[in-house]
């Protein structure tokens, strides 16, 4: 901290100040993004400040954007928590002359965001469906465990998963979504009940870390670990450990570090008046126990700290 009171306006004078507003503070995806951004900021010699809400939610992110705008950085990297709700605060930020770069997620208003570096969560969900289909031999009952309804990124993953299953995997029976409220014991309860109801459960798609953890614990207790296949999302150290321990058989990895680094690059370019790339799509990678040790896959794994 400590930049309060500095006058960073005017682009050229003094150090460039960039703020990253995460979609959710304290989540590995966004922490890895912050790490990538910090590394790049150090390299470019700009000051980086990181903020984020306690929940992935526009009503909590809006006040943060407002106070960031009040502290007048030169540029803001933001993962908007809603395509529509974040338009108003970001418009206000734009009016204050702050250069905005959208990372991970986007807003509907195309005029916001000099550059957009985004992950396609629908595609990620579809990738998860493909990975799970491969694990279970394209047939059997599959269950999805999500956090809370209404979290747009997770909803998109589920949508992608469901569409892919229904469109291209007729052998798979989709059992629907259960919500763990981001609580491991809740996820464990859900899988326990699912096993009691459908002892022939074939696969689980756990849409985030806590869901995978709880589900894995339940499978472990039931002695069905490895028997019921599981696909997780994101590739933080904890998830990779689950992969190596055989709790999950595949992970869908995004590229948060990359996104963060590229975001800072674009933001600095914008502040300096240089050319920016309006749209940079990033991809999702399927990580399995087989390919996890390959160097190109190692590169996409999230980092624990920086």
């Amino acid at each position, binding site marked *: 901290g400590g930049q309060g009171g500095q006058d960073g306006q005017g682009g050229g004078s003094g150090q460039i100040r960039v703020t990253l507003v995460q979609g959710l503070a304290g989540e590995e995806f966004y922490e890895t993004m912050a790490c990538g951004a910090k590394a790049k900021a150090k390299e470019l010699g700009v000051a980086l400040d990181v903020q984020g809400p306690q929940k992935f939610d526009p009503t909590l992110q809006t006040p943060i954007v407002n106070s960031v705008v009040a*502290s007048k950085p030169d540029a803001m990297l933001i993962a908007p928590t*809603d395509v529509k709700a974040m338009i108003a605060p970001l418009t206000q930020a734009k009016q204050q002359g702050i250069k905005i770069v959208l990372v991970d997620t986007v807003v509907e208003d195309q005029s916001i965001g000099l550059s957009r570096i985004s992950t396609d969560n629908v595609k990620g969900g579809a990738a998860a469906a493909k990975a799970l289909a491969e694990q279970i031999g394209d047939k059997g009952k599959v269950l999805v465990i999500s956090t809370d*309804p209404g979290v747009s990124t997770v909803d998109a993953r589920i949508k992608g998963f469901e569409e892919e299953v229904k469109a291209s995997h007729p052998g798979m029976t989709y059992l629907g979504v259960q919500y763990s409220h981001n609580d491991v014991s809740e996820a464990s309860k859900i899988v326990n009940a699912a096993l009691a109801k459908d002892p022939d459960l074939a696969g689980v798609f756990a849409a985030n870390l806590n869901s995978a953890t709880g589900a894995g614990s339940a499978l472990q207790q039931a002695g069905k670990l490895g028997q019921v296949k599981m696909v997780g999302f994101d590739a933080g150290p904890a998830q990779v450990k689950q992969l190596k321990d055989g709790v999950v058989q595949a992970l869908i990895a995004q590229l948060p570090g990359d996104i963060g680094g590229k975001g800072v690059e674009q933001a600095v370019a914008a502040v300096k008046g240089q050319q920016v790339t309006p749209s940079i799509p990033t991809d999702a990678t399927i990580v399995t126990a087989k390919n996890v040790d390959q160097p190109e896959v190692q590169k996409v794994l999230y980092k624990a700290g920086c």
Partner: protein
Amino acid sequence: MKGVRLGRLQVVWIGLVLLALLAAFSALAPRTFPTAFNLLNLVSDAAILLLLATGMTYVIITAGIDLSVGGVLVFSAVAAAEVMDATGSLLLGTLAALVTGLAWGVLNGVLIALGRIPALIVTLGTLGMSLGGALLLTGGVDLRAPTDLNLGLGLARWLGVPLIVWICAAITAVLALMLAYTRFGRHTYAIGSNAEAARRGGVAVHGHLIRVYGLAGLLAGLAGQLSLAKYGITGVSAHSTDNLQAIAAVVIGGTSLFGGVGTVAGTVIGVFIPVVLQNGFQILGVRPFWQQVVVGAVLVAAVYVDQWRRRARDQ
């Protein structure tokens, strides 16, 4: 001295704490914190919580509690969004929000007053029911507000201050006066102080409790509509901590969880203390994890100062 009402004195110390925080942040970030832009944002961020906390003040003064406010807010927002979608009328949407909010509140009140079920259980139950109901209505997907609500009421200003802030401030002011100066307020205190004595004194305790919970529900319904206007989205996953935030604001403001004492003025200060802390620390660039730690510590310290000064005055 003797003429000064206790209720008024109570908010003085915690008010001073708020002023001290404002002064400290202004000194540390003189160019960015005490700007009209930032302070307006502060007020605007707090406005909707203020409605919930004001309703909660009434409820807690009766020695009750209402955990359902966040769920009712979401349900009302969803109801309003669906009605506006179907009819295109903002007015009907607002009405839908108010009516559904009131209905949930009255349901709370009836179960608590007539069913004599602990308020915590009733409102925990209706929290789950209203949230589940909202999800059933939407299929788990956030609904959007009509553009003319979001860009109309959501952005409208009067004298430079958002209309939503004016609405919340006006309602809070009316309810503050009502609590302090009317029969309705007096009975609220009496029930929280000693429900049995109030009953023997001829206060219609059951009816009054239903009205108080109804009021809290009504305010949550209005908050739903305003939050829909402000954020343009129903926020089905966004309000799970609203109840604790509102309760904390009420208690910071000097209202006792055991009922019988409290003021809306204190609640207003109690709403602003966490908001100011969060905003100030963000502007100072404190890292989010540290913010959590420091906000927690300052919260305890602020209430401690209040308690300590009050005790010193009484001795």
